[in-house]
């Protein structure tokens, strides 16, 4: 009997997972579809770009500065062992542009804006505000989710590129300013080794991460349970799941595209 019960439970779990995945995929498709279909929610979208993008700027500046400084410091000491300090620019720049810029920017936005978004949508669900939209014959996905998706797709690349540029200068400041690598070589080597391909990669990754983070955070908030713990749970799950997906997706994209 216990065996049968166990098998039943595994089966139910697998079925639930497939259903959840399908549900998420439909949610993603609908939110993207309504983003391109009229009526356009330009004002809401601008407002979300302000919240997700512009208001995350200070955090991104802070994080990118320290990331660049750490890369400059550790990169210099390691390259110094081989007398290859001239390659510091390449090391810092490519690490930022190819991996750290898009990934860290995405994680930071997920932690800051994604969590707030999941909590906001979650409490709207809990207090029946989403039902209120539906009752008014307003499509809640189009009204609430699509503007956030567009805002993510716009904001993530911008923040990522800013992250890269600030990080490269911070690496320069530590490596060349404090530790004595050659400044000219820093930028020359970076320029020689960074191609159009790398810049395209950083933008492409940021774009995909924008969709991943926004859709996961919106989905979790939108489907928050109407319980006291529903909103907090949705918020936690949104940040954890979007962070894991960003890192996993980054690996796969890196291995396919590099």
């Amino acid at each position, binding site marked *: 009997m216990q065996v049968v019960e166990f098998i039943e439970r595994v089966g139910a779990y697998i079925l639930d997972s497939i259903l959840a995945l399908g549900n998420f995929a439909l949610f993603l498709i609908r939110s993207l579809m309504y983003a391109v279909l009229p009526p356009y929610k330009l004002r809401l979208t601008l407002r979300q770009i302000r919240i997700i993008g*512009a208001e995350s700027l200070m955090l991104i500046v802070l994080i990118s500065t320290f990331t660049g400084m750490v890369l400059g410091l550790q990169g210099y000491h390691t390259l110094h062992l081989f007398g290859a300090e001239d390659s510091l620019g390449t090391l810092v720049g490519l690490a930022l542009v190819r991996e750290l810029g898009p990934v860290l920017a995405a994680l930071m936005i997920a932690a800051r804006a994604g969590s707030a978004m999941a909590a906001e949508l979650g409490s709207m669900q809990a207090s029946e505000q989403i039902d209120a939209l539906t009752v008014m014959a307003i499509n809640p996905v189009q009204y609430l989710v699509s503007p956030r998706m567009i805002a993510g797709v716009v904001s993530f690349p911008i923040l990522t590129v800013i992250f890269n540029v600030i990080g490269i200068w911070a690496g320069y400041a530590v490596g060349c300013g404090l530790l004595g690598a050659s400044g000219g070589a820093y*930028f020359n080597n970076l320029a020689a*080794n960074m191609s159009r391909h790398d*810049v395209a990669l950083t933008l492409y990754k940021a774009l995909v991460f924008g969709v991943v983070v926004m859709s996961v955070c919106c989905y979790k908030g939108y489907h928050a349970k109407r319980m006291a713990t529903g909103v907090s749970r949705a918020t936690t799950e949104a940040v954890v799941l979007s962070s894991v997906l960003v890192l996993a997706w980054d690996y796969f994209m890196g291995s396919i595209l590099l």
Partner: protein
Amino acid sequence: MYASRTTQFIVGLFALLGIAALAILSFRLGKISILPTPGYVIYANFDNISGLKPGDEVDIAGVRIGKVLGASLSDNQARVAMEIDKGVQIDNDAIASILSMGIIGGKYVSIQLGGGDKTLSNGDIIRQTQSAFVLENAIGQFINNIGQSGGSKDSSSSQDSQQSQQKK
């Protein structure tokens, strides 16, 4: 209502910042050009270009004057195409050598100007070249030379063999 002028202004500023950052990343840090570069292309044939990649630096006296575009095989030699910045003049007696930055650093092409009477233009070839210094070969030879009673003449001739001057 919701998208106030403040929001519009902030979002506009944010977008502008993003475009500026992308421009810096691409053109200032990446030196990626969208327009066809205002320079000219010259070629040089080397016996061995081990480690030289497209995008590597081309310099005169340590100053960057262009970059390596690519290499192809011609007559069992590597033909390297180099893009030279506009305004830089290279004479027909110049020597192109492949050097390394530090022991494990990347390779680059260094051009030493000669006293030639003509200036190279688009599509011309630098006749005199010096191939890449391959550390493994040099160590191998060094060990050989020690084995062969360490004559000083041999070691100097081995250095010559590294150079393949092609004069016509």
